[in-house]
């Protein structure tokens, strides 16, 4: 470690003994009745990568620990290991079937403070274990709140909506934390959160107070992670790990909130889980039925979701009932009076680019327009403008995409 040469000038932290009280990275898993929410796998993937680096760098053996609350979801626990967890702490109870902030906070906080649970997968650190070193939550409508209340209970700090993480040793000089002295904080989690403007990254640190006036530890260092940012690991059934059962006990107040009912609102169209969205508009008009089929074929080739511009939802063209009820529905409308999408790739076929439509897709990564009219407003809203009639361009494009497909897959390996 080249940095050590400098550390002689730096007042070393009086925390070497404390450091061993905080071990492992706990990942709070979200799932729907045993089916993991994608961000859970993404968090595990990132946790695995971080802890592999961490253990190599610090010659330690700290674990990625998935925390699962649920009812009859042991299968999920195994899956967590396949996706990168070293161990799973599983709190099973009918009371935990659905996420409820109050009781979940109680259970997770107790798990976080329970050294015995760690003995099973990390006996060497169990005796001195007080709390996890790091903790990950999902930055979604459950995790955002859960992370907040758990940290309020554990009296530690939290950064939300993180999209980049680095663990490093940092020399910190802070008016209060270090009383103006430079102190090295080892194994610090740098939590990057994109600023509201979208221009800036703010790095948040959760640091112990090493100010002699009011020393205080703040662990775990925790964050909530934006879904869709980190890559999950591939599922690997050869991964091994232990599942530790934890039997939660509840006080009466813990169960004060009752779930009376749950109603799933499933949109027919799932734009969010596709990397690409293909939308069509009035440009299909010359032969609507055939042209919609062309769009469907292109979407199929790219595993893309299909969207439409508003006029299409008014069913302006005669098509078969099947086509009409599949595609010409309000649920597919992208724009002000419909959905807003932000796929990596957006292809607008025969869409002129009315403002109302642009609002719904302007956040997309790369935009391709297929349109015969170079003067159409969509021209100024796309990265690539393929000039031509969709009847001619789309078949050519599909053919070419198919041709290039194997080559791309090989080069990806």
């Amino acid at each position, binding site marked *: 470690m080249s940095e050590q040469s400098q550390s002689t000038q730096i007042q070393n932290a009086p925390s070497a003994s404390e450091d061993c009280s905080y071990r492992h990275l706990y990942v709070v898993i979200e799932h729907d009745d045993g089916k993991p929410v*994608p961000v859970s796998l993404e968090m595990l993937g990132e946790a695995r990568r971080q802890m592999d680096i961490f253990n190599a760098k610090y010659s330690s053996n700290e674990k990625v620990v998935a925390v699962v609350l649920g009812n009859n979801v042991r299968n999920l626990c195994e899956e967590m290991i396949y996706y990168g967890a070293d161990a799973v702490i599983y709190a099973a109870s009918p009371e935990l079937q659905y996420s409820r902030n109050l009781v979940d906070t109680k259970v997770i906080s107790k798990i976080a403070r329970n050294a015995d649970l760690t003995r099973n997968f990390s006996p060497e650190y169990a005796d001195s274990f007080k709390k996890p070193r790091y903790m990950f939550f999902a930055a*979604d409508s459950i995790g955002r709140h859960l992370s907040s209340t758990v*940290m309020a209970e554990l009296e530690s700090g939290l950064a939300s909506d993180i999209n980049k993480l680095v663990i490093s040793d940092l020399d910190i000089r802070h008016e209060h934390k270090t009383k103006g002295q430079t102190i090295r904080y080892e194994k610090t989690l740098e939590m990057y959160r994109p600023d509201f403007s979208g221009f800036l990254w703010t790095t*948040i640190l959760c640091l112990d107070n090493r100010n002699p006036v*009011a020393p205080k530890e703040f662990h775990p260092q925790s964050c909530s992670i934006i879904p869709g940012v980190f890559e999950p690991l591939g599922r690997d059934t050869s991964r091994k790990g232990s599942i530790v059962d934890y039997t939660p006990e509840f006080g009466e107040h813990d169960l004060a909130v009752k779930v009376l009912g749950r109603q799933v609102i499933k949109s027919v169209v799932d734009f969010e889980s596709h990397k690409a969205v293909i939308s069509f508009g009035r440009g299909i008009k010359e032969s609507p039925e055939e042209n919609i089929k062309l769009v469907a074929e292109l979407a199929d080739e790219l595993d893309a979701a299909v969207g439409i511009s508003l006029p299409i939802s008014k069913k302006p063209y005669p098509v078969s009932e099947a086509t009409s009820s599949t595609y010409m529905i309000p649920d597919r409308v992208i724009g002000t009076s419909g959905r807003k999408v932000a796929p990596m790739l957006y292809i607008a076929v025969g869409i002129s680019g009315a403002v109302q439509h642009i609002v719904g897709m302007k956040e997309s990564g790369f935009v391709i327009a297929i349109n*015969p009219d170079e003067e159409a407003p969509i*021209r100024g809203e796309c*990265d690539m403008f393929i000039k031509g009639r969709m009847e001619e361009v789309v078949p050519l494009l599909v053919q070419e995409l198919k041709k290039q497909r194997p080559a791309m897959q090989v080069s990806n390996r």
Partner: protein
Amino acid sequence: MIGMRSLNVAVIVKLEPDFSEGNVSYNADGTLNRAETKSILGPHSAIASLAAFYSKVRYGARITVGTMGPPIADAALQQAQMLCDADELHLYSDRLFAGADTLATAETLKAGISKMQGGIEGMDLVFSGHRASDGETGQTGPQTAWKLGFPFLGNVIDYNLDLERRTIRAKRLISLQGFYDIVEEIEAPLPAFVSVDPSYQPNFNTVSQRLALGRYRKEAAERSSNYKQYLKVFNAQQMGVDPKLVGLPGSPTIVYKVEKIPKAKASRKSEVIDGANPEHIRLAAAKIHEILSGAVVK
């Protein structure tokens, strides 16, 4: 409602930069120019105020709006009063509170709520917004709830109270990004802490309720034009907070650095491709594969 205890409601709000077009101003590096941008009641705070207002129109609640901030934050209180016809406005303002992260802010707000009518024991419902738009991230609400010991109900899109049983029945919108959306109906005893989903819209569905709504709105407009009459300002000492738990000393987190996010996304200057030229189409197909393989990260 004779013999029934009145309903004490608190709303926690925040003064935020106005991000609407024409009002927001940016520095040369693209960061927010706070000096030039005027501040308003945050949009989520506004929704929380509306949710509290519902409890006034439907259940005759007594409302106190509280905020932590510099003296100018009273503007947020005034705007909130306009929305919820608040009976009292609280400003928690002290240099000691400066630099607080969410945990330390929650500590201050808890102390603030203890100063409201009836104290923490007499409080029935606390509302907060979903999140602030200028950096804080929806943590303050749940953390304040936890410190108060109130059950936290997040993402609430609709609620009603049973004043006899002293319970709240609420609908929550749980949205797990692209995975599923669920509307969950829950019941909790009062007191409770409610964070309101941005899609919350109070629903008044009889003519009489609407007429009452009109009357309270008018009262709200009158009150907020004399808001100082309803305003109480508290400093740390008056609130009896432990200085170790608020401001910088009470904050586990710090902002370590701020940097520009490297821009990957090009502006949309379209490259025109001839749809009849097979070579062009070949290039287009290659580009599509490149994007979808993740070579270009958003």
